[in-house]
């Protein structure tokens, strides 16, 4: 009887299967989770620069979650419209700071132009965060609505689509620059002057 001296080789055929199992495990556990939310930029200082009262849109959310807009109680559902009316007002009829694209009422007691218009959002310590986010959402929505309108007018494409295409990452270097310029242009027309600090007017 022949005696086997060599130990038999380990069969490596199942290696692929094992690796596949591990691979599938990591595939499943990998959650390329993307958070989303309202991006804001905090002000560096509370600059007491001279802001005229008519250029200030005061939104106050009190401890019992009631909304006070320009000194009057308002339902949150109407906030977006009010904010749009304020930003789009364009009080000046001519001269420096005349807003040619504004479609508002050109009310004397409301903002001069979108560049000067500032929304000031204040709250108390007791305000509920959910309400606060709803208000923020409505205000950001007002800006986005106006930006969409202008983007549609100038470029025949909505601001949101512009942003989506820009962030898609499928653009060539030159296209990216073009998109960036377009976005900056729209942002200039309606800058997001949304302050979270209490502002004082002149």
């Amino acid at each position, binding site marked *: 009887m022949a005696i086997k001296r060599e130990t038999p080789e380990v069969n490596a055929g199942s290696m692929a299967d094992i690796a596949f199992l591990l691979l599938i495990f990591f*595939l499943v556990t990998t959650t390329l989770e993307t958070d*989303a*939310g*309202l991006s*804001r930029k905090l002000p560096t200082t509370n600059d007491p620069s001279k802001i005229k009262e008519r250029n200030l849109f005061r939104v106050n959310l009190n401890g019992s979650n009631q909304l006070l807009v320009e000194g009057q109680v308002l339902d949150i559902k109407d906030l977006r419209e009010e904010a749009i009316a304020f930003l789009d007002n364009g009080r000046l009829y001519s001269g420096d700071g005349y807003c040619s694209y504004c479609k508002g009422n050109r009310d004397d007691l409301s903002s001069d132009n979108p560049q000067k218009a500032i929304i000031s959002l204040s709250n108390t310590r007791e305000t509920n*965060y959910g*309400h606060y986010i709803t208000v923020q*959402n409505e205000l950001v929505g007002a800006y986005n609505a106006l930006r969409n309108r202008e983007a549609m007018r100038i470029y025949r494409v909505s601001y949101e689509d512009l942003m989506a295409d820009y962030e898609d990452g499928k653009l060539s270097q030159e296209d990216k620059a073009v998109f960036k310029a377009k976005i900056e242009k729209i942002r200039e027309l309606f800058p997001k002057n949304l302050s979270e600090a209490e502002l004082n007017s002149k």
Partner: protein
Amino acid sequence: MYIMRKNKNKLPQVSTASLPDIVFILLFFFMTVTVMKNNALLVENTLPNAQEIEKLDKQDRVIDVVVGPPVKKYKSVLGSESRIQLNGNFAGVNEVGFHVFSELKKMPEQLQKVAIVSLKIDKRTQMGIVNDIKEELKEIGALKINYTTFEGDALSNLP
């Protein structure tokens, strides 16, 4: 010559010997990409809803600050008032600045400028603690923030 003649009308089998190697490369890729986040939340974290949201798709520049009422386990000790959680530990408001700053310094330099602080705040929280956090962030110059929310009807946040 002899071998060639023998195999003339048979195609040689495709070798599958390299298959494990290919799979292993894929495996290593996913292993390195997977971030096993310390997701043990000590606080309840039901985010509010919003529609006008922007995505934070690059996770390498995001610093999380989680706020919410403590989970059941800690409720008897800490009460139901909202607390701050930083990296798996409860923290006080005055620790937020230091935490964000040290996280910021861990990032490569080019990311430090574009870093975003993601505020994951439970919708039942009161704004007092949020204001305090914002003050802390202002102090260390982390000005880009994101109120992280779910996508949905913002008006549903109202009771």
